[in-house]
């Protein structure tokens, strides 16, 4: 089952994209985008995983124990921060879209009105 984490990544990307394409509500669309982004967390953590690796916290383990890749975990943290900021900005835009167009349905946003 060593390909399972990678299949989860592909599944999350496609699931999220399907949600984005068929979305009828901008808030739902933002959440679908974060599903797509969460696939990158799984990918980064899967790449950083080491068989029999411990968490990279050397409080009660020897400094030479095999650990999972801490660089990938640090990158995942960066990724989560970016995801949070993107969601916040898009939700703010959603509030503005509702005020301007009176709807949060992407199909009803008229590009000529903006």
């Amino acid at each position, binding site marked *: 089952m060593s390909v399972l984490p990678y299949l989860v990544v*592909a599944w999350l990307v496609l699931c999220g994209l399907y949600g984005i394409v068929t979305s009828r509500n901008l808030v739902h669309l933002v959440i679908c985008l974060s599903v797509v982004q969460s696939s990158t967390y799984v990918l980064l953590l899967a790449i950083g995983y080491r068989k029999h690796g411990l968490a990279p916290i050397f409080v009660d383990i020897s*400094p030479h124990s095999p650990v999972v890749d*801490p660089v990938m975990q640090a990158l995942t943290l*960066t990724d989560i*921060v970016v995801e949070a900021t993107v969601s916040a900005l898009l939700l703010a835009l959603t509030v503005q879209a509702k005020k301007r167009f009176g709807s949060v349905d992407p199909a009803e946003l008229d590009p000529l009105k903006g």
Partner: protein
Amino acid sequence: MSLAVRRRVFLVAAAGFGALIVWGLTGLPDFGVEIGHLGTRIAHAAVPERHVTAAVSAINFDYRAFDTLGEEFILFTAAAGVALLLRSGRGERERPHIDASPDRQVPETSDLVRVFGVGLIGFTLLLGLYVVFHGHLTPGGGFQGGVVLAAAVLVVYLAGEWVSAGRLRPVAAMEALEATGAAGFAALGLAGLVAGRAFFQNVLPLGRSGQLLSGGTIPLGNLTVGLEVMGALLLVFSEFLEQALLLRRRS
């Protein structure tokens, strides 16, 4: 394009795209196999070189601190962007607003939520401070702790009422908190230059690993980032809450 057509077009495209992703992912090394030696080397260098037990913090606030500076300013800019986007809408408040459902019932906060909320505030604050201050020893750090600290303030809102004006001016305090945190972290980088070494070089005494005061500038990095994250999230939350309260006051 109608929804049905759009779905059909997507399914065709997704089949190709999905095949490409799976093809790309199968080219990766097997799950659990070591790819390169960087991760293991840095993990094993964290204790002897930086005297911190949490390797992820050593990377974020020392080896990769320059990247974290950029990451922190992404958050800073996004909070400013949200504030800008939602504040520009406040001018529209003056116009008469037609409530779509004027007779809807806005539920009152129940006493149970109030009592538990008040009880939770202290615990959440303590947990947030613990996570921030032990970032270089155990899992956690400035980013995670900052989110917990922001949640503590949100519990205040949940249990009571959001104070948007008055003498306390929480928004000004949040902006100050965010700016102090961001500037503090940048100052840590400059400290390296002032000491005549590289940007973000760890210039403070490292101490004994496992102790609260160890790791040189790493705990300070956690603290400043924690303040920045707390301030930025509170600013974002308060802007959204203000929009919600705007609707509630009208009804």
